[in-house]
């Protein structure tokens, strides 16, 4: 595959993974390795464990590439969802999130082909917008998102931690996601179809 792999679409890359092409795995890592590792470190705070989580997550994509439907979502989302769930499982001792990783069918549009510089710029813009969107949330809504997504706490656990009714936590979660979605969509960074 060589240098041409940088021009492959996600769908083509997945086909290479499904065919057992190790170079496709290397290309997958080069595209998303830093994102995956950064996410794992953010959740775990432990670089050693983060390496294991990233390796496990890439191996899951490698093993189940044949199950991936590019029409339903992006490869990046699948991989990073796996990283997040694996990291939370390590952190919270709660295995068993595998089913949802393949089930989630409402995703970002699949990423088209593109060079590494463009991907880096695109991710940087998305990161900047996301951070602005998070900062713009009321602190109680931002807190719920951070505890849930990066801390791996369930709604009931969060309600206990912040000492508010469960229904309030769920309401804050929905409001936060609605605002984030609206903010990112308004800047053309996500397409909710």
């Amino acid at each position, binding site marked *: 595959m060589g240098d041409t792999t940088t021009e492959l679409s996600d769908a083509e890359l997945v086909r290479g993974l499904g065919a057992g092409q190790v170079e496709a795995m290397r290309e997958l890592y080069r595209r998303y390795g830093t994102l995956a590792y*950064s*996410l794992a470190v953010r959740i775990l705070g432990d670089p050693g464990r983060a390496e294991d989580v990233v390796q496990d997550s890439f191996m899951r994509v490698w093993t189940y590439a044949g199950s991936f439907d590019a029409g339903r979502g992006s490869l990046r989302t699948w991989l990073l969802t796996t990283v997040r769930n694996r990291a939370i499982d390590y952190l919270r001792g709660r295995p068993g*999130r595998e089913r949802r990783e393949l089930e989630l069918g409402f995703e*970002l549009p699949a990423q088209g082909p593109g060079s590494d510089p463009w991907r880096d710029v695109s991710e940087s813009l998305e*990161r900047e917008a*996301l951070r602005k969107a998070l900062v713009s949330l009321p602190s109680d809504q931002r807190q719920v998102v951070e505890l849930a997504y*990066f801390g791996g706490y369930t709604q009931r656990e969060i309600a206990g931690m912040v000492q508010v009714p469960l229904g309030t936590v769920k309401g804050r979660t*929905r409001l936060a*996601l609605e605002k984030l979605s609206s903010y*990112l969509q308004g800047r053309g960074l996500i397409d909710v179809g």
Partner: protein
Amino acid sequence: MSVDHEELENSIAAYVLGSADPEDEDRLRAHLEACASCRELAARLAPAVSSLPLEPEPVKPPRRLEDRVVAAAAATRGASDPKPRSIRRVWLPGPPRVRVRFSGLRAGLAAAAVLLFAAGAVAGSSLDRLGAQRPAARPPAAEVQRYQLAGSGPMAGVQANAVYLKRDSLTLVDFKYMPAPAPGQLYELWLITGDGRAVPAGVFSPESDGSKVVLVDRNLEGVKTVAVTAEPAPNGSQAPSQAPQLVGRIA
């Protein structure tokens, strides 16, 4: 819209965020299948959740991580039937090389330790936490030591975690992503003492998915290093015939 349905919609948001309570997940999944407006809500919120992994400041991974990932993939290439990890056999290390048969309490301890690996708990989460869910299997925290082995060359992608149940003189080494040994070879586990003596601790071949759990039925007093080499099948060697490519130091 009913109050009940609004509550469900809020729960759907939590589900999309990966934060629903486990006891609610089946109900929410079923509701999503039946309710078009909630599917629409989920589809609207999910892209924002998909952007959240970009929030962390980028951290450059160590160079070895790429090697690990690629080596692990190469190690499993050709596996005819990749399956979720399972523990199918447990081997007794060292001569005589026969299968382990425990009785009584030791059988329970070994089974509990194997269950911990099977649950995926040992590699990263708290042995004590899982033990708390299974009180009968819970070893005292001070009696449990964990070690990691690091690979190089063809073993760069291998994950190997050892748990030493000190009081019971049992060690389990959990291997993942092991490449298949060359024809006519298998892997041999060594316990290397402080004076440099390599004690054979068992031979094994990984499963088709590269996994294996090896049980070492002895204490680790005086052992400074755990290592793995490839040796001739079926009995291995009495001394390592090559430099180990998988090594872990016992602190």
